[in-house]
C-alpha cells in the first residue's frame, strides 16, 4: 500500500461517513414544500390529520385555508379564531397585520428570515440536530398541562413574553395579536403526536378558541400588493418602536392605493412590469400563474436604472469578449523533437535493481565487468581464473580472491564495500579510471 493511501483511506472513510450522515439527515427532514407536510386533510407520517381529528373531538372547528389571503379573510369574517401557520416560511406573513386584534397565532418553526419579515420581537437563538424533549420550565398553563414535549429543535429568544421548553415554545403579544412560536413540528405530526406530552401541547395551543384556521400552503404564497414606487425597499420594514395605529394605517393605506404601486418605468416594455400590471386586481391568479422569480418582490423593487446599467455592463463584457476573441493570426504548430533520453533504459534497469534489492545480480554484473577488464588488460584469455589474474597482476592470490570471489552481499553496506573494493582492484591493476572505448 502506498504511503499516501494510508493517510487518505481513513480520512476518506471519515469524510464519506460524515457526508453520508448529513445527506441522510437532510433527506429525512420533513419538507414544508411536501403537500403532505402538516396538512389537516391526511393522516400520514408528516401530516397533521390526527391533530385535526383531536381538535374536532375537543369541539374545535378546523377550517383549512390554502392561501394567506384566504386565511386572513377566514379569521376576520367571524368571531375569534386561532390561526395555525404550519408553514410560516411559505406564507405571506405581512398580510397577518390585517388580522383583528386578539387573534391567536401559532407558528411552527419559522425561520430567522420570516421572523424578520413579520418583525415579531423574537429571534432564533440556535438549533438542535433533532427535536429534543424538555420540561416546560414555565408557568404557561398549556405547557404545564402537557408536561415534557419534543418541541425544542429551533430555540427562540423573546425579549418579552413567555419562554417555555428552553426556547422551544415562545409566546408573546405583538400589535394586539397573541403569537406562539413552536420550535419543532414534531408535536403536530401524525407520527410523533402520541409521544410524550406532544398531543396535549398541540391540542392545548390550538384549542384556545373554538375555531382554528389552518393555513395549509406548500408553495411560496405571494401577495398581489407591492410597495409603492417611492420606497425601493420593502414597505413593511417599520420602526419596531412605532405604535400599532401607525402600522395599521400604513398598511391599509397601501392596500387601498391600488394605482400607486409598480416599478417606475414599467410601461417601457419590460415583461416583469407587464405581468405585474395584470395581477393588480386579481391576487389569486397572479399567485398561481406567475413564476417565483418574476414575482419576487425583491427583484420587482429594483429600479429600471439598475436593469439598464446591468444590461450596459453585459454589453461591455460582450464587446470585450468579441475584441479578445478574434486573433491576429492562428497559432502555428510544428512537430516537436523526441524527448526520450538515451540513458532511459539504463536508469530504468538501475531503479529495478534498487527496488528489487537485487544485490546479487548487481554484484554479478560488476564482477563480470571487472574480470573482463582485468583479463583484457593483462592479456589473459576471457575465462582466466582468479589465480591467473592474481599472478599476472602480481598481487597476492588471497587478496584478489577475496575481492573477485567474495560471498554474495548480505546488506547494502556489504554491497557498497564489495563494489568499492572491486573498483579499487581494477584501478590498481589497469591504472585507469574510465572504461575507454578504444577503436578495435
Amino acid at each position, binding site marked *: 500500500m502506498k504511503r499516501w493511501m494510508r493517510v487518505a483511506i481513513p480520512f476518506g472513510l471519515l469524510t464519506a461517513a460524515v457526508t453520508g450522515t448529513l445527506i441522510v439527515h437532510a433527506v429525512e427532514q420533513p419538507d414544508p414544500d411536501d403537500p403532505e407536510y402538516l396538512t389537516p386533510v391526511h393522516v400520514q407520517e408528516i401530516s397533521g390529520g390526527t391533530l385535526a381529528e383531536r381538535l374536532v373531538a375537543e369541539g374545535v372547528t378546523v377550517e383549512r385555508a390554502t392561501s394567506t389571503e384566504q386565511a386572513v379573510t377566514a379569521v376576520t369574517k367571524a368571531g375569534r379564531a386561532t390561526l395555525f401557520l404550519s408553514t410560516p416560511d411559505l406564507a405571506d406573513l405581512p398580510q397577518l397585520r390585517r388580522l383583528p386584534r386578539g387573534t391567536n397565532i401559532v407558528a411552527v418553526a419559522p425561520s430567522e428570515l420570516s421572523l424578520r419579515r413579520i418583525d415579531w420581537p423574537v429571534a432564533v437563538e440556535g438549533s438542535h440536530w433533532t427535536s429534543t424533549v424538555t420540561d416546560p420550565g414555565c408557568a404557561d398553563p398549556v405547557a404545564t398541562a402537557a408536561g415534557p414535549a419534543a418541541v425544542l429543535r429551533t430555540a427562540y429568544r423573546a425579549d418579552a413574553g413567555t419562554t417555555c421548553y428552553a426556547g422551544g415554545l415562545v409566546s408573546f403579544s405583538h400589535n394586539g395579536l397573541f403569537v406562539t412560536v413552536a420550535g419543532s413540528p414534531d408535536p403536530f405530526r401524525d407520527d410523533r403526536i402520541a409521544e410524550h406530552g406532544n398531543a396535549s401541547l398541540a391540542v392545548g395551543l390550538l384549542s384556545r378558541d373554538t375555531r382554528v384556521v389552518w393555513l395549509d400552503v406548500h408553495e411560496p404564497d405571494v401577495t398581489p400588493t407591492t410597495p409603492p414606487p417611492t420606497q425601493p425597499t420593502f414597505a413593511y420594514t417599520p420602526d419596531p418602536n412605532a405604535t400599532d395605529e401607525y402600522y395599521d394605517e400604513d398598511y391599509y393605506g397601501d392596500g387601498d392605493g391600488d394605482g400607486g404601486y409598480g416599478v417606475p418605468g414599467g410601461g417601457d416594455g419590460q415583461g416583469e412590469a407587464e405581468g405585474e400590471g395584470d395581477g393588480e386586481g386579481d391576487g389569486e391568479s397572479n399567485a398561481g400563474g406567475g413564476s417565483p422569480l418574476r414575482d419576487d418582490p425583491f427583484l420587482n423593487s429594483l429600479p429600471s436604472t439598475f436593469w439598464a446599467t446591468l444590461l450596459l455592463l453585459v454589453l461591455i463584457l460582450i464587446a*470585450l469578449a468579441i475584441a479578445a476573441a478574434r486573433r491576429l493570426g492562428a497559432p*502555428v504548430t510544428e512537430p516537436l523533437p*523526441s524527448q*526520450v533520453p538515451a540513458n532511459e533504459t539504463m536508469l530504468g534497469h*538501475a531503479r529495478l535493481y534498487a527496488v528489487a534489492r537485487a544485490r546479487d545480480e548487481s554484484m554479478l554484473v560488476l564482477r563480470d565487468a571487472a574480470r573482463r577488464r582485468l583479463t583484457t588488460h593483462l592479456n589473459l584469455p576471457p575465462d582466466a581464473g582468479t589465480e591467473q589474474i592474481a599472478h599476472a597482476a602480481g598481487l597476492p592470490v588471497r587478496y584478489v580472491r577475496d575481492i573477485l570471489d567474495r560471498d554474495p552481499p548480505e546488506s547494502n553496506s556489504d554491497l557498497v564495500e564489495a563494489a568499492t573494493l572491486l573498483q579499487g582492484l581494477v584501478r590498481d591493476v589497469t591504472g585507469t579510471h574510465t572504461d575507454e572505448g578504444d577503436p578495435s
Partner: protein
Amino acid sequence: MVTRRFALLLALGLPAPILLPQPWLALGAVFGFALLLALLDAAVAGPLTGIALERAGERTVWLGGSATVTLTVANASGRTVRLRLRDSWVPSAGAAPLYHKLTLTPGSAKTVATVLTPTRHGDRPAVRVTLRSAGPLGLAYRQRRQTWHDKLTPPWTLRVLPRFPSRRILPERLARLRVVDGSAVTRGRGHGTEFDNLREYVIGDDVRSIDWRASARAHDVVVRTWRPERDRRVFCVLDTGRTSAVRIGDAPRLDACIDAALLLSVLATRADDRVDLLALDAAVRARVEGGGHRSKLGRLINGMASLHPELAETDFTLLGQEMLRRDRKRALLVIFTALDTAPMIAGLLPILPKLAARHKVIVAGVRDPIVTRLAELPADANATDVHQAAAAHRVLAERDRVRDVLAHSGATVVDADAGDFAARVADVYLLLKASGRL
C-alpha cells in the same frame, strides 16, 4: 470587428442610464452611438486588398546565430492604412518581435524586420503574415480570413545549418593532416604510397626510394618521393532512424553524428578526397554525390541541415543496395549510427561482410557520457550508486559485444562519448590516411 476601445467607449456611457431620467433610452442611445462610431470607423479603415508584401534577408544561418529577415509592406490603395501585422514563423525559428505596427500612406511602403534565433537546425519556414487594418478612431478594424492571408504571404524559408562545435578542434586536425601530407615539415616529403615526383638524393633519404632508372638517365642519384593518396572516396552514411532521435544531453544523437560527419567532411575535402553523403532510415532522406570539388562542402552542409530524426527502424539493406552497386568504387564508408544491439545485429550485421569486402567500413556510434560516468562509483557511494554502476556496466558489456561482432565482420568501430566523438572519428580517418589504408 470591434476593439477593446469600443468596450471602453461603452464603459464611458455607464453613468448615462443612472443620471438621465429615461434609463432605457439612455442605454439605447449610448449603445447606438458607440455602434454607429464603430461602423463608421470600420468603413473608413484602409482596405487590405491594396496591400502587397515582399520578403528579403538571410537565407541561411548557423544554429546558435541570429538572422534578420525583412518584410516590405506596400500600400497600393488610395487610402491610409493603419496596420497591425503579425509575422508568424514556426516556433523553433525563434522569431521576434511577433507584432509590428505601421501606418502606410497611399502608395507608400515600409519595411519591418524580424530577427530569427532558431532553436533547431533544418528548414524553418515563415508560415503566415496576418494583417489587421484599424480605423482612425481605433474602435473597429478589418481583418480577412486565414486562407486569404495564406495566399498573400510571400514564401520564405530559413535554412538553419547544424551546430558545428568541432570547429574548435578543426585547426589542430588540419595541422595533423598537413603533417601527413608532408607540406608542413621541412624534412622530406610526406609519407604515402602515391608517387609524387623525382628529386636529387640528399643524405638521409631512404635508399629504398632511389629510382635507379631515373638515376641512370640523369647521371645523378635520384629518389622518388611519395605523397598520401588523393581523390579517395569517403562516404558518410548518417542513420536518421529511431535510435538517432534519443537525446544525449539536450540534443538528439543525430546532432552529434552530424557534427562528426561535418568535421570528417571538412578534413577529407582539405585532403583532396571526395566526400559523399547518404542519410537513411526507412528510406533515403538525403544524398549528396558528385559535383564540383569546391562547392561540395557547402552542398554537404546543406544536405545535413535538412536532416531530422525519423521514428522508424533503419533499413540497412538500402545502404547495401547503394554501396554494393557494380559501378561503385572502393570507398571509406563511415556509418554514423548507435551501437544498440538489436538494430546492429538485425540490421547492419547481415550486410556488413559484403560491405567490408568492397569498402573500408567504419561504424561510429555516439555514447551517452552519463553511462561512462555512472559506471564509476563516486567517493561516497551508496547502494543506489552501485545498482546504477551495475546497470551502466551492463550497457557497456552489451556494447562491447556489439563492437566485437562488428569488428569480427570487418568493420572498424569507433565508440566514444558525445564530447569527443567527432575528434575520434577524425583521428581514425587521419590514421587510415597516414597509413595509406584508404
